[in-house]
């Protein structure tokens, strides 16, 4: 068990910058998620921690040891790969036993430990099969078992659920969460799926273009996004971002509609962020701003109304019993307590 710390870590390939001078402290026993779109540097960061990629600059510390020059095998980490990386020519038992064997664990110890790991991921009955004979979810479990059969200093998980179908992903997510709480080992988890990040993480680091945009608990990055990118990336449907200005303590859209009072000084250019959840939908003329419905969607658990707001379209969430049609008029009210203002130039949040 150990902390992991990255100090001014950089990875460049020629002119391309994968990770740009980033520092990050991961606490002992913490579950940290690296979240971001593809190409943001999250996987590169993890691969550098594993030793599969050499950093161009900076230091990687695991516990009290600088591991930059250590081979992957000497870093005492375990990793679950996106495509599982199972050994197709070995049985499940041998797959799980491999990390022990290659480290010279005594024979008598191997069998009970493999059995215990298999039990933890409910694989006991498949031990004598080859990976080919297993389903996607089962292969995923083998990869997990292979990681937990030892007690490494750090778990690394690279998009471990992304190859599963939607339903299985939800089940495995819960199992993963259960397991990680039980094992209490420092875990770094890479994903592009914000729901995985929200549900699994103690803390989330949101990355873009090789730079960590925000580091915080799931609550913080959802309720208190640091910039436009984080605001737009977290939440489904994505946060509505409306261009406009602040005049006389009110947000005014580019179309000139005075929308809602905000507590910020006047400025000509500003982006207002508001989540679909934080908009109230009511009948036309009932207090809010009247808008025309561009598309009405019923998801079963709620309704989504895409409405035309001047030149922009905005998505609001309505009651699941609401029934409207295209081109109907509705009234929208914004919740003044859950509004975010951003500087369109820098993308940074404007805090009052």
């Amino acid at each position, binding site marked *: 068990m150990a902390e992991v710390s990255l100090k001014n870590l950089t990875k460049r390939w020629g002119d391309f910058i994968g990770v740009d001078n980033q520092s990050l402290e991961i606490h002992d026993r913490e579950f940290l998620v690296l979240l971001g779109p593809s190409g943001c540097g999250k996987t590169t960061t993890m691969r550098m921690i594993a030793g599969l990629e050499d950093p161009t600059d900076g230091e990687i510390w695991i516990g009290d040891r600088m591991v930059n020059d250590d081979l992957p*095998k000497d870093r005492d980490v375990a990793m679950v790969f996106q495509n599982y990386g199972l050994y197709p020519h070995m049985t499940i038992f041998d797959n799980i036993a491999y990390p022990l064997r290659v480290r010279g664990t005594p024979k008598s110890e191997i069998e009970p430990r493999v059995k215990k790991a298999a039990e933890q991921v409910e694989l006991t009955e498949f031990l004598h099969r080859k990976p080919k004979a297993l389903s996607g979810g089962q292969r995923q479990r083998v990869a997990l078992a292979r990681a937990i059969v030892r007690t490494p200093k750090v778990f690394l998980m690279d998009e471990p659920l992304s190859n599963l179908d939607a339903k299985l992903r939800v089940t495995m997510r819960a199992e993963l969460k259960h397991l990680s709480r039980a094992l209490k080992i420092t875990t770094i988890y890479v994903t592009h799926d914000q729901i995985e990040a929200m549900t699994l993480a103690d803390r989330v680091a949101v990355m873009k273009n090789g730079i960590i945009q925000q580091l915080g608990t799931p609550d913080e990055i959802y309720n208190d996004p640091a910039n436009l990118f984080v605001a737009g990336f977290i939440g489904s449907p994505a946060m509505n971002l409306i261009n406009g200005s602040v005049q006389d303590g009110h947000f005014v859209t580019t179309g000139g509609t005075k929308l809602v009072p905000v507590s910020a000084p006047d400025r000509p250019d500003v982006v207002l962020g508001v989540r679909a959840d934080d908009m109230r939908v009511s009948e036309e003329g009932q207090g809010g701003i009247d808008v025309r419905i561009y598309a009405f969607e019923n998801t079963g658990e709620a309704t989504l109304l895409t409405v035309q707001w001047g030149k922009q379209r905005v998505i609001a969430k309505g009651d699941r019993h609401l029934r409207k049609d295209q081109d109907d008029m509705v009234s929208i009210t914004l919740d003044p307590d859950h509004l975010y203002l951003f500087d369109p130039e820098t993308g940074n949040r404007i805090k009052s």
Partner: protein
Amino acid sequence: MTGKQKKQITSAIQTILILIAIFIMLVPILWIFMAAFKSHVDVYQLKLFFTPTFENFGLVFDAPYYLGDKLLNSTIIAFVTVLFAIPIATMAAYSFSRFRLRGETAMLVVILATQFVPAVVIILPFFVMFRDVGLLDTRLGLILVNLAIVMPFAIWMIKGFIDGIPMDTEEAAMVDGSSRIQVILNIVLPMAAPGLLTAGIFCFIIAWNEFLFALILTNKDAVTLPIGLALFKAEEGDLWNLLSAAGIIIMLPMFVLALIIRKYFVQGMTMGAVR
């Protein structure tokens, strides 16, 4: 005519064309097969129906032809060529596949290009050198020059197979605690085994069928099967029944080997240019 009738006619024409193609493909092979089982008299009387005999296969192994010696030479030469080529090619292929080397593209292009150098260019200096060091008409000499034609195929073919092994698996093994050498021995070799076997068989066929090198470098002791065919030219003309029997001994094992690796045959010849 309805669309359905049109389809049926097209399909019938296609079937007929395919059957004609099969016929043309098989005739020269069958012609040799038939002659090999004909008696001396039957060959020269052009019989389509005859009493098959195995006597030709006995004759070719006897005096003065001793095809057995040539068979042994061919087998040893092809086998040892493969035995040298595959391990050397595998090492290089792994490195080319997994690492970035200085001058990598240049090396790969040169290796690719050597396959296309006409054999007749390569063999002239080798003849001179072998004459000086006494390697003419030896199996070792032939094995050495065979490496020239086999290596580029082997390297490119095995590289293709290793490229197909997911990186994930190797990286998993490294994180699990393997050194690079252990990764190669425990993970890559077992996973690439079918590919190595395929490349080995492919090289075996090339070495077995090789003609020009053997023609120039051997005359008595190290003569291989394809050169042995020339034995059956007598004063009175070609001894077709014996020639055919020898031909079957040359081609039958290669047919069997080629069918084993048929999935990869094309891949081997085009070396990744056609996907």
